[in-house]
Protein backbone atom coordinates (compact mmCIF):
# COMPACT_ATOMS: atom_id res chain seq x y z
CA UNK A 1 0.00 0.00 0.00
CA UNK A 2 2.82 2.44 0.76
CA UNK A 3 4.43 3.75 -2.37
CA UNK A 4 7.81 5.44 -2.39
CA UNK A 5 7.84 9.09 -3.34
CA UNK A 6 11.08 10.39 -4.74
CA UNK A 7 11.20 13.97 -3.72
CA UNK A 8 9.30 14.98 -0.63
CA UNK A 9 8.60 18.67 -1.09
CA UNK A 10 7.71 19.33 2.53
CA UNK A 11 8.47 17.55 5.74
CA UNK A 12 5.34 15.45 5.26
CA UNK A 13 5.94 11.84 6.17
CA UNK A 14 2.59 10.38 5.16
CA UNK A 15 0.25 11.61 2.48
CA UNK A 16 -3.22 10.06 2.57
CA UNK A 17 -5.58 10.79 -0.32
CA UNK A 18 -9.27 9.96 -0.61
CA UNK A 19 -8.98 6.89 1.52
CA UNK A 20 -12.11 4.76 1.90
CA UNK A 21 -12.62 1.84 4.25
CA UNK A 22 -15.33 -0.75 3.81
CA UNK A 23 -16.05 -4.12 5.40
CA UNK A 24 -16.76 -6.61 2.66
CA UNK A 25 -19.32 -5.36 0.15
CA UNK A 26 -21.05 -3.05 2.62
CA UNK A 27 -21.02 0.69 1.91
CA UNK A 28 -17.83 2.33 3.20
CA UNK A 29 -17.66 3.32 6.88
CA UNK A 30 -15.00 5.90 6.13
CA UNK A 31 -14.71 7.75 2.83
CA UNK A 32 -12.79 10.60 1.27
CA UNK A 33 -10.26 10.67 4.06
CA UNK A 34 -7.46 13.01 2.99
CA UNK A 35 -4.74 14.30 5.26
CA UNK A 36 -1.00 14.46 5.73
CA UNK A 37 1.12 13.62 8.73
CA UNK A 38 4.10 15.83 9.33
CA UNK A 39 7.35 14.13 10.16
CA UNK A 40 7.81 14.00 13.92
CA UNK A 41 4.25 15.12 14.66
CA UNK A 42 1.86 13.65 17.23
CA UNK A 43 -1.68 13.27 15.90
CA UNK A 44 -4.67 11.84 17.72
CA UNK A 45 -7.74 10.45 16.00
CA UNK A 46 -11.00 10.52 17.96
CA UNK A 47 -14.60 9.79 17.09
CA UNK A 48 -17.53 7.56 18.00
CA UNK A 49 -17.33 3.79 17.67
CA UNK A 50 -17.77 2.40 14.19
CA UNK A 51 -16.14 5.20 12.22
CA UNK A 52 -13.25 2.94 11.31
CA UNK A 53 -10.55 4.37 13.57
CA UNK A 54 -8.91 1.04 14.27
CA UNK A 55 -9.33 -0.06 10.68
CA UNK A 56 -7.61 3.13 9.56
CA UNK A 57 -4.56 2.02 11.54
CA UNK A 58 -4.80 -1.46 10.06
CA UNK A 59 -4.82 0.04 6.58
CA UNK A 60 -1.84 2.27 7.33
CA UNK A 61 0.09 -0.70 8.71
CA UNK A 62 -0.71 -2.77 5.64
CA UNK A 63 -2.85 -5.38 7.42
CA UNK A 64 -5.96 -4.48 5.43
CA UNK A 65 -6.38 -3.08 1.94
CA UNK A 66 -8.37 0.16 1.63
CA UNK A 67 -11.55 0.15 -0.45
CA UNK A 68 -10.21 3.19 -2.32
CA UNK A 69 -7.57 5.89 -2.11
CA UNK A 70 -3.82 6.00 -1.67
CA UNK A 71 -1.31 6.23 1.13
CA UNK A 72 2.07 7.57 0.19
CA UNK A 73 5.02 7.32 2.45
CA UNK A 74 8.72 7.24 1.63
CA UNK A 75 9.87 3.69 2.23
CA UNK A 76 13.47 2.77 2.17
CA UNK A 77 14.50 -0.75 2.93
CA UNK A 78 16.94 -0.48 5.78
CA UNK A 79 18.50 -3.18 7.88
CA UNK A 80 16.95 -3.47 11.30
CA UNK A 81 14.06 -1.13 10.56
CA UNK A 82 10.44 -1.22 9.55
CA UNK A 83 8.79 1.95 8.27
CA UNK A 84 5.53 1.43 10.19
CA UNK A 85 4.85 -0.30 13.48
CA UNK A 86 1.60 -0.94 15.30
CA UNK A 87 0.92 -0.89 19.03
CA UNK A 88 -2.15 -3.02 19.66
CA UNK A 89 -4.96 -2.28 22.05
CA UNK A 90 -4.28 -5.48 23.98
CA UNK A 91 -0.60 -6.28 24.48
CA UNK A 92 -0.70 -9.47 22.36
CA UNK A 93 2.65 -10.70 23.61
CA UNK A 94 3.68 -14.19 22.57
CA UNK A 95 3.26 -16.14 25.82
CA UNK A 96 5.96 -18.69 24.95
CA UNK A 97 8.65 -16.06 24.56
CA UNK A 98 10.44 -14.27 27.33
CA UNK A 99 10.10 -10.49 27.46
CA UNK A 100 13.37 -9.88 25.63
CA UNK A 101 12.47 -12.25 22.78
CA UNK A 102 9.05 -10.62 22.54
CA UNK A 103 10.67 -7.25 21.99
CA UNK A 104 13.06 -8.77 19.46
CA UNK A 105 10.15 -10.33 17.54
CA UNK A 106 9.57 -7.26 15.39
CA UNK A 107 13.20 -7.27 14.29
CA UNK A 108 13.14 -10.81 12.94
CA UNK A 109 13.33 -10.73 9.18
CA UNK A 110 14.80 -7.23 9.04
CA UNK A 111 18.27 -8.51 8.22
CA UNK A 112 19.83 -8.19 11.66
CA UNK A 113 21.69 -11.21 13.03
CA UNK A 114 20.30 -12.61 16.27
CA UNK A 115 22.95 -11.09 18.53
CA UNK A 116 22.24 -7.60 17.17
CA UNK A 117 18.51 -8.16 17.48
CA UNK A 118 18.89 -9.03 21.13
CA UNK A 119 21.17 -6.06 21.75
CA UNK A 120 18.63 -3.75 20.14
CA UNK A 121 15.81 -5.38 22.09
CA UNK A 122 17.75 -4.84 25.32
CA UNK A 123 18.27 -1.15 24.47
CA UNK A 124 14.60 -0.70 23.67
CA UNK A 125 13.61 -2.46 26.86
CA UNK A 126 15.79 -0.04 28.80
CA UNK A 127 14.12 2.82 26.91
CA UNK A 128 10.71 1.81 28.27
CA UNK A 129 12.22 1.28 31.71
CA UNK A 130 11.88 -2.49 31.92
CA UNK A 131 15.49 -3.62 31.43
CA UNK A 132 15.32 -5.84 34.51
CA UNK A 133 12.28 -7.72 33.14
CA UNK A 134 14.15 -9.16 30.14
CA UNK A 135 14.04 -12.74 31.43
CA UNK A 136 10.43 -12.78 32.61
CA UNK A 137 7.54 -14.56 30.95
CA UNK A 138 4.63 -12.39 29.80
CA UNK A 139 2.23 -13.88 32.36
CA UNK A 140 4.48 -12.62 35.13
CA UNK A 141 3.92 -8.98 34.14
CA UNK A 142 1.29 -6.47 35.17
CA UNK A 143 -1.06 -4.95 32.60
CA UNK A 144 0.98 -1.75 32.49
CA UNK A 145 4.23 -3.64 32.02
CA UNK A 146 2.70 -5.68 29.22
CA UNK A 147 1.68 -2.50 27.42
CA UNK A 148 5.22 -1.17 27.79
CA UNK A 149 6.52 -4.34 26.15
CA UNK A 150 3.91 -3.95 23.40
CA UNK A 151 5.27 -0.43 22.90
CA UNK A 152 8.89 -1.58 23.05
CA UNK A 153 8.26 -4.29 20.44
CA UNK A 154 6.98 -1.62 18.05
CA UNK A 155 9.74 0.88 18.88
CA UNK A 156 12.50 -1.70 18.47
CA UNK A 157 12.12 -1.57 14.69
CA UNK A 158 12.75 2.20 14.80
CA UNK A 159 9.68 3.01 12.74
CA UNK A 160 9.14 6.31 10.98
CA UNK A 161 5.46 6.06 11.81
CA UNK A 162 4.12 4.56 15.02
CA UNK A 163 0.43 3.65 15.03
CA UNK A 164 -1.21 3.27 18.44
CA UNK A 165 -4.66 1.73 18.78
CA UNK A 166 -6.07 2.85 22.15
CA UNK A 167 -3.11 1.24 23.87
CA UNK A 168 -3.92 2.55 27.34
CA UNK A 169 -7.70 2.10 27.34
CA UNK A 170 -7.69 -1.06 29.45
CA UNK A 171 -5.36 0.30 32.15
CA UNK A 172 -6.27 1.85 35.47
CA UNK A 173 -6.21 5.66 35.64
CA UNK A 174 -2.86 5.98 37.42
CA UNK A 175 -1.03 3.53 35.16
CA UNK A 176 -2.59 5.21 32.16
CA UNK A 177 -1.23 8.61 33.16
CA UNK A 178 2.22 7.19 33.83
CA UNK A 179 2.27 5.57 30.41
CA UNK A 180 1.01 8.72 28.71
CA UNK A 181 3.96 10.63 30.16
CA UNK A 182 6.25 7.78 29.22
CA UNK A 183 4.98 7.86 25.64
CA UNK A 184 5.62 11.61 25.44
CA UNK A 185 9.15 11.12 26.71
CA UNK A 186 9.75 8.38 24.11
CA UNK A 187 8.33 10.66 21.43
CA UNK A 188 10.71 13.47 22.45
CA UNK A 189 13.65 11.08 22.51
CA UNK A 190 12.96 9.24 19.25
CA UNK A 191 11.06 11.92 17.26
CA UNK A 192 8.90 9.15 15.82
CA UNK A 193 5.76 10.31 14.03
CA UNK A 194 2.79 9.22 16.13
CA UNK A 195 -0.77 8.47 15.11
CA UNK A 196 -2.80 7.68 18.21
CA UNK A 197 -6.39 6.43 18.13
CA UNK A 198 -8.41 6.95 21.31
CA UNK A 199 -11.91 7.37 22.71
CA UNK A 200 -10.61 9.54 25.48
CA UNK A 201 -10.65 13.25 24.50
CA UNK A 202 -8.64 14.21 27.57
CA UNK A 203 -5.96 11.75 26.53
CA UNK A 204 -5.98 13.08 22.97
CA UNK A 205 -5.48 16.67 24.10
CA UNK A 206 -2.87 15.69 26.66
CA UNK A 207 -0.75 13.86 24.09
CA UNK A 208 -1.25 15.28 20.62
CA UNK A 209 -0.42 18.42 18.65
CA UNK A 210 -3.43 17.85 16.53
CA UNK A 211 -6.72 16.04 17.07
CA UNK A 212 -8.64 14.75 14.08
CA UNK A 213 -12.33 14.24 14.83
CA UNK A 214 -14.01 11.65 12.64
CA UNK A 215 -17.77 11.37 12.31
CA UNK A 216 -20.75 11.11 10.01
CA UNK A 217 -21.94 8.32 7.76
CA UNK A 218 -19.84 7.42 5.93
CA UNK A 219 -17.33 8.94 8.32
CA UNK A 220 -14.94 11.65 7.33
CA UNK A 221 -12.98 14.40 9.03
CA UNK A 222 -15.49 16.51 10.98
CA UNK A 223 -12.80 18.84 12.23
CA UNK A 224 -9.08 18.99 12.55
CA UNK A 225 -8.13 20.70 15.82
CA UNK A 226 -4.63 22.05 16.35
CA UNK A 227 -3.61 21.78 20.01
CA UNK A 228 -1.24 24.55 20.89
CA UNK A 229 -0.67 24.02 24.55
CA UNK A 230 2.86 24.06 25.90
CA UNK A 231 4.37 20.94 27.23
CA UNK A 232 4.44 19.58 29.81
CA UNK A 233 0.68 20.00 29.75
CA UNK A 234 -1.39 20.57 32.81
CA UNK A 235 -4.88 19.11 32.72
CA UNK A 236 -6.12 21.63 35.25
CA UNK A 237 -5.50 24.81 33.26
CA UNK A 238 -8.53 26.52 31.70
CA UNK A 239 -6.85 26.38 28.30
CA UNK A 240 -6.63 22.58 28.52
CA UNK A 241 -10.19 22.07 29.71
CA UNK A 242 -11.50 24.52 27.11
CA UNK A 243 -9.77 22.61 24.35
CA UNK A 244 -11.26 19.32 25.53
CA UNK A 245 -14.67 20.95 25.86
CA UNK A 246 -14.45 22.33 22.31
CA UNK A 247 -13.73 18.91 20.86
CA UNK A 248 -16.46 17.29 22.97
CA UNK A 249 -18.99 19.84 21.69
CA UNK A 250 -18.03 19.13 18.09
CA UNK A 251 -18.21 15.39 18.78
CA UNK A 252 -21.73 15.55 20.31
CA UNK A 253 -22.86 17.74 17.45
CA UNK A 254 -21.56 15.31 14.84
CA UNK A 255 -23.14 12.37 16.67
CA UNK A 256 -26.56 14.04 16.87
CA UNK A 257 -26.29 15.06 13.19
CA UNK A 258 -25.12 11.66 12.04
CA UNK A 259 -28.05 9.70 10.66
CA UNK A 260 -29.00 6.80 12.88
CA UNK A 261 -26.00 6.67 15.20
Amino acid at each position, binding site marked *: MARPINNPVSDMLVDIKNLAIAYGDAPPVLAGFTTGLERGSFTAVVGPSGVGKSTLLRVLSGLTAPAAGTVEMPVKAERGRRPVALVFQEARLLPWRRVLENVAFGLE*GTGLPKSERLTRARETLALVGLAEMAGRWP*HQLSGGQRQRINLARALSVRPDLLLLDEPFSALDAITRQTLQDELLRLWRETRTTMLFVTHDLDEAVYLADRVILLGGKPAGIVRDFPVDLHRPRDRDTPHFTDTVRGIRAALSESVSDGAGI
Partner: protein
Amino acid sequence: MQRSLLAFAGLVAFLLIWEAAPRLGLISPLFLPPPSTLPQAFTREITGGYWLAAVLASLSHYLIGLALGTGLGVALGIATALYDRLEAVLSWVIRLLRPVPGLAWVPFAIVWFGIGEAAATFIIVIGVFWINYYAAYGAAKAIDKDLLEVADAFGHRGTWAKLVKIVLPGSTAGILSGVRTGLGQAWMAVVAAELFGVPGLGQRMIQASSLLATDVVVVYMITIAALYGLTDTVFVLIRDRLLRWQR
Protein backbone atom coordinates in the same frame (compact mmCIF):
# COMPACT_ATOMS: atom_id res chain seq x y z
CA MET B 1 4.43 -36.12 51.04
CA GLN B 2 1.10 -37.29 52.36
CA ARG B 3 0.01 -38.01 48.81
CA SER B 4 2.99 -40.29 48.14
CA LEU B 5 2.33 -42.09 51.43
CA LEU B 6 -1.27 -42.68 50.37
CA ALA B 7 -0.13 -43.84 46.94
CA PHE B 8 2.28 -46.30 48.57
CA ALA B 9 -0.39 -47.53 50.99
CA GLY B 10 -2.79 -48.05 48.09
CA LEU B 11 -0.24 -50.10 46.19
CA VAL B 12 0.57 -52.25 49.25
CA ALA B 13 -3.12 -52.89 49.88
CA PHE B 14 -3.61 -53.86 46.26
CA LEU B 15 -0.73 -56.36 46.41
CA LEU B 16 -1.93 -57.79 49.73
CA ILE B 17 -5.43 -58.47 48.42
CA TRP B 18 -3.96 -59.93 45.25
CA GLU B 19 -1.69 -62.21 47.29
CA ALA B 20 -4.44 -63.20 49.72
CA ALA B 21 -7.09 -64.13 47.17
CA PRO B 22 -5.34 -67.22 45.67
CA ARG B 23 -3.72 -68.16 49.01
CA LEU B 24 -7.03 -68.21 50.88
CA GLY B 25 -8.38 -70.45 48.15
CA LEU B 26 -10.81 -67.81 46.90
CA ILE B 27 -9.49 -68.26 43.41
CA SER B 28 -7.20 -70.74 41.65
CA PRO B 29 -3.52 -69.63 41.42
CA LEU B 30 -3.72 -70.48 37.72
CA PHE B 31 -6.41 -67.85 37.28
CA LEU B 32 -4.53 -65.34 39.38
CA PRO B 33 -0.87 -66.09 40.18
CA PRO B 34 -0.01 -64.49 43.56
CA PRO B 35 2.64 -61.75 43.41
CA SER B 36 5.03 -63.78 45.58
CA THR B 37 5.47 -66.26 42.71
CA LEU B 38 6.41 -63.56 40.26
CA PRO B 39 10.08 -62.97 41.20
CA GLN B 40 10.75 -66.61 40.44
CA ALA B 41 9.09 -66.40 37.04
CA PHE B 42 10.90 -63.15 36.40
CA THR B 43 14.29 -64.68 37.21
CA ARG B 44 13.56 -67.59 34.87
CA GLU B 45 12.76 -65.23 32.04
CA ILE B 46 15.90 -63.19 32.63
CA THR B 47 18.33 -66.08 32.98
CA GLY B 48 16.81 -67.72 29.91
CA GLY B 49 17.67 -64.53 27.98
CA TYR B 50 14.05 -64.11 26.84
CA TRP B 51 13.33 -61.01 28.83
CA LEU B 52 16.10 -58.74 27.58
CA ALA B 53 15.68 -59.85 23.95
CA ALA B 54 11.94 -59.20 24.12
CA VAL B 55 12.38 -55.81 25.78
CA LEU B 56 14.96 -54.64 23.23
CA ALA B 57 12.96 -55.85 20.25
CA SER B 58 9.74 -54.23 21.50
CA LEU B 59 11.51 -51.00 22.43
CA SER B 60 12.81 -50.70 18.91
CA HIS B 61 9.33 -51.26 17.39
CA TYR B 62 7.90 -48.89 19.94
CA LEU B 63 10.33 -46.03 19.39
CA ILE B 64 10.31 -46.20 15.59
CA GLY B 65 6.53 -46.63 15.38
CA LEU B 66 5.91 -43.90 17.92
CA ALA B 67 8.24 -41.44 16.18
CA LEU B 68 6.77 -42.08 12.73
CA GLY B 69 3.15 -42.14 13.85
CA THR B 70 3.54 -39.01 15.95
CA GLY B 71 5.47 -37.15 13.27
CA LEU B 72 3.04 -38.02 10.50
CA GLY B 73 -0.04 -37.39 12.63
CA VAL B 74 1.19 -34.00 13.84
CA ALA B 75 2.29 -32.97 10.34
CA LEU B 76 -1.03 -33.89 8.71
CA GLY B 77 -3.01 -32.40 11.59
CA ILE B 78 -1.27 -29.05 11.27
CA ALA B 79 -1.42 -29.11 7.48
CA THR B 80 -5.19 -29.67 7.45
CA ALA B 81 -5.62 -26.97 10.09
CA LEU B 82 -3.69 -24.48 7.96
CA TYR B 83 -5.05 -25.33 4.52
CA ASP B 84 -8.84 -25.35 4.23
CA ARG B 85 -8.72 -27.02 0.83
CA LEU B 86 -6.64 -29.91 2.10
CA GLU B 87 -9.08 -30.28 4.97
CA ALA B 88 -11.99 -30.36 2.54
CA VAL B 89 -10.32 -32.91 0.28
CA LEU B 90 -9.47 -35.20 3.18
CA SER B 91 -12.59 -34.81 5.29
CA TRP B 92 -14.36 -37.97 4.09
CA VAL B 93 -11.19 -39.97 3.60
CA ILE B 94 -10.47 -39.35 7.27
CA ARG B 95 -13.99 -40.29 8.34
CA LEU B 96 -13.55 -43.51 6.40
CA LEU B 97 -10.20 -44.50 7.85
CA ARG B 98 -10.44 -43.12 11.36
CA PRO B 99 -12.73 -45.82 12.91
CA VAL B 100 -10.73 -48.78 11.56
CA PRO B 101 -9.16 -50.46 14.62
CA GLY B 102 -5.42 -51.12 14.55
CA LEU B 103 -5.92 -54.89 14.65
CA ALA B 104 -7.95 -54.77 11.44
CA TRP B 105 -4.82 -53.60 9.66
CA VAL B 106 -2.85 -56.71 10.67
CA PRO B 107 -3.62 -58.72 7.51
CA PHE B 108 -2.65 -55.76 5.35
CA ALA B 109 0.50 -55.21 7.38
CA ILE B 110 1.48 -58.83 6.74
CA VAL B 111 0.65 -58.66 3.04
CA TRP B 112 2.41 -55.35 2.51
CA PHE B 113 5.42 -55.75 4.78
CA GLY B 114 5.67 -59.50 5.48
CA ILE B 115 5.87 -60.89 8.99
CA GLY B 116 8.59 -58.74 10.48
CA GLU B 117 9.69 -55.52 12.04
CA ALA B 118 8.19 -53.29 9.36
CA ALA B 119 4.73 -54.80 9.77
CA ALA B 120 4.87 -54.42 13.55
CA THR B 121 6.03 -50.82 13.21
CA PHE B 122 3.19 -50.11 10.80
CA ILE B 123 0.59 -51.31 13.31
CA ILE B 124 2.09 -49.04 15.97
CA VAL B 125 2.15 -46.10 13.56
CA ILE B 126 -1.58 -46.60 12.93
CA GLY B 127 -2.14 -46.92 16.66
CA VAL B 128 -0.80 -43.45 17.46
CA PHE B 129 -1.43 -41.61 14.20
CA TRP B 130 -5.03 -40.49 14.78
CA ILE B 131 -4.55 -39.35 18.34
CA ASN B 132 -1.75 -37.08 17.20
CA TYR B 133 -3.61 -36.00 14.11
CA TYR B 134 -6.62 -34.76 16.06
CA ALA B 135 -4.58 -33.23 18.87
CA ALA B 136 -2.40 -31.26 16.45
CA TYR B 137 -5.35 -30.28 14.27
CA GLY B 138 -7.30 -28.99 17.25
CA ALA B 139 -4.35 -27.14 18.71
CA ALA B 140 -3.44 -25.46 15.43
CA LYS B 141 -7.06 -24.49 14.76
CA ALA B 142 -7.33 -22.91 18.19
CA ILE B 143 -4.37 -20.58 17.66
CA ASP B 144 -5.18 -17.06 18.79
CA LYS B 145 -5.96 -15.06 15.62
CA ASP B 146 -4.71 -11.93 17.34
CA LEU B 147 -1.23 -13.43 17.54
CA LEU B 148 -1.31 -14.34 13.85
CA GLU B 149 -2.13 -10.69 13.23
CA VAL B 150 0.90 -9.65 15.28
CA ALA B 151 3.01 -11.76 12.95
CA ASP B 152 1.38 -10.06 9.96
CA ALA B 153 1.92 -6.61 11.43
CA PHE B 154 5.62 -7.30 11.87
CA GLY B 155 6.13 -8.51 8.35
CA HIS B 156 5.80 -12.29 8.78
CA ARG B 157 3.20 -12.75 6.09
CA GLY B 158 4.01 -16.19 4.67
CA THR B 159 2.48 -19.44 5.86
CA TRP B 160 5.89 -20.89 6.68
CA ALA B 161 6.88 -17.89 8.81
CA LYS B 162 3.57 -18.05 10.66
CA LEU B 163 3.96 -21.79 11.15
CA VAL B 164 7.39 -21.46 12.72
CA LYS B 165 6.81 -18.29 14.72
CA ILE B 166 3.22 -18.65 15.90
CA VAL B 167 1.43 -21.89 15.03
CA LEU B 168 4.00 -24.43 16.23
CA PRO B 169 4.97 -22.74 19.49
CA GLY B 170 1.35 -21.81 20.13
CA SER B 171 0.07 -25.35 19.68
CA THR B 172 2.85 -27.11 21.58
CA ALA B 173 0.70 -27.73 24.65
CA GLY B 174 -2.09 -29.33 22.61
CA ILE B 175 0.30 -31.38 20.49
CA LEU B 176 2.09 -32.68 23.56
CA SER B 177 -1.13 -33.82 25.20
CA GLY B 178 -1.74 -35.91 22.08
CA VAL B 179 1.82 -37.24 22.16
CA ARG B 180 1.35 -38.27 25.78
CA THR B 181 -1.83 -40.22 25.02
CA GLY B 182 0.07 -41.80 22.14
CA LEU B 183 2.86 -42.95 24.48
CA GLY B 184 0.44 -45.29 26.25
CA GLN B 185 -1.49 -46.20 23.13
CA ALA B 186 1.74 -47.24 21.40
CA TRP B 187 2.54 -49.78 24.13
CA MET B 188 -0.88 -51.31 23.64
CA ALA B 189 -0.22 -51.38 19.92
CA VAL B 190 3.14 -53.08 20.49
CA VAL B 191 1.38 -56.12 21.93
CA ALA B 192 -1.14 -56.19 19.09
CA ALA B 193 1.62 -55.74 16.53
CA GLU B 194 3.61 -58.70 17.85
CA LEU B 195 0.62 -61.04 18.03
CA PHE B 196 1.35 -62.45 14.61
CA GLY B 197 4.83 -63.69 15.34
CA VAL B 198 7.13 -60.70 15.41
CA PRO B 199 9.56 -61.18 18.34
CA GLY B 200 9.04 -58.96 21.38
CA LEU B 201 7.10 -58.59 24.61
CA GLY B 202 3.76 -59.19 22.94
CA GLN B 203 4.89 -62.40 21.32
CA ARG B 204 6.35 -63.66 24.58
CA MET B 205 3.06 -62.90 26.33
CA ILE B 206 1.10 -64.83 23.73
CA GLN B 207 3.45 -67.80 23.99
CA ALA B 208 3.12 -67.82 27.78
CA SER B 209 -0.63 -67.49 27.71
CA SER B 210 -1.04 -70.33 25.24
CA LEU B 211 0.88 -72.49 27.77
CA LEU B 212 -1.32 -71.07 30.57
CA ALA B 213 1.87 -69.77 32.22
CA THR B 214 -0.10 -66.93 33.74
CA ASP B 215 2.75 -65.93 36.04
CA VAL B 216 4.93 -65.22 32.98
CA VAL B 217 2.09 -63.24 31.41
CA VAL B 218 1.94 -61.11 34.53
CA VAL B 219 5.74 -60.63 34.45
CA TYR B 220 5.40 -59.11 30.97
CA MET B 221 2.36 -57.05 31.97
CA ILE B 222 4.46 -55.54 34.71
CA THR B 223 7.38 -55.08 32.33
CA ILE B 224 5.20 -53.11 29.94
CA ALA B 225 3.78 -51.08 32.80
CA ALA B 226 7.30 -50.28 34.00
CA LEU B 227 8.48 -49.29 30.51
CA TYR B 228 5.40 -47.12 30.10
CA GLY B 229 5.97 -45.53 33.50
CA LEU B 230 9.55 -44.76 32.51
CA THR B 231 8.69 -43.28 29.10
CA ASP B 232 5.86 -41.23 30.58
CA THR B 233 8.07 -39.88 33.36
CA VAL B 234 10.78 -38.86 30.89
CA PHE B 235 8.10 -37.33 28.69
CA VAL B 236 6.66 -35.25 31.52
CA LEU B 237 10.13 -33.88 32.30
CA ILE B 238 10.64 -32.85 28.68
CA ARG B 239 7.13 -31.43 28.42
CA ASP B 240 7.47 -29.32 31.54
CA ARG B 241 10.70 -27.93 30.14
CA LEU B 242 9.05 -27.08 26.80
CA LEU B 243 6.02 -25.52 28.46
CA ARG B 244 7.83 -23.66 31.21
CA TRP B 245 6.33 -20.41 29.89
CA GLN B 246 2.92 -21.48 31.11
CA ARG B 247 1.53 -20.43 34.44
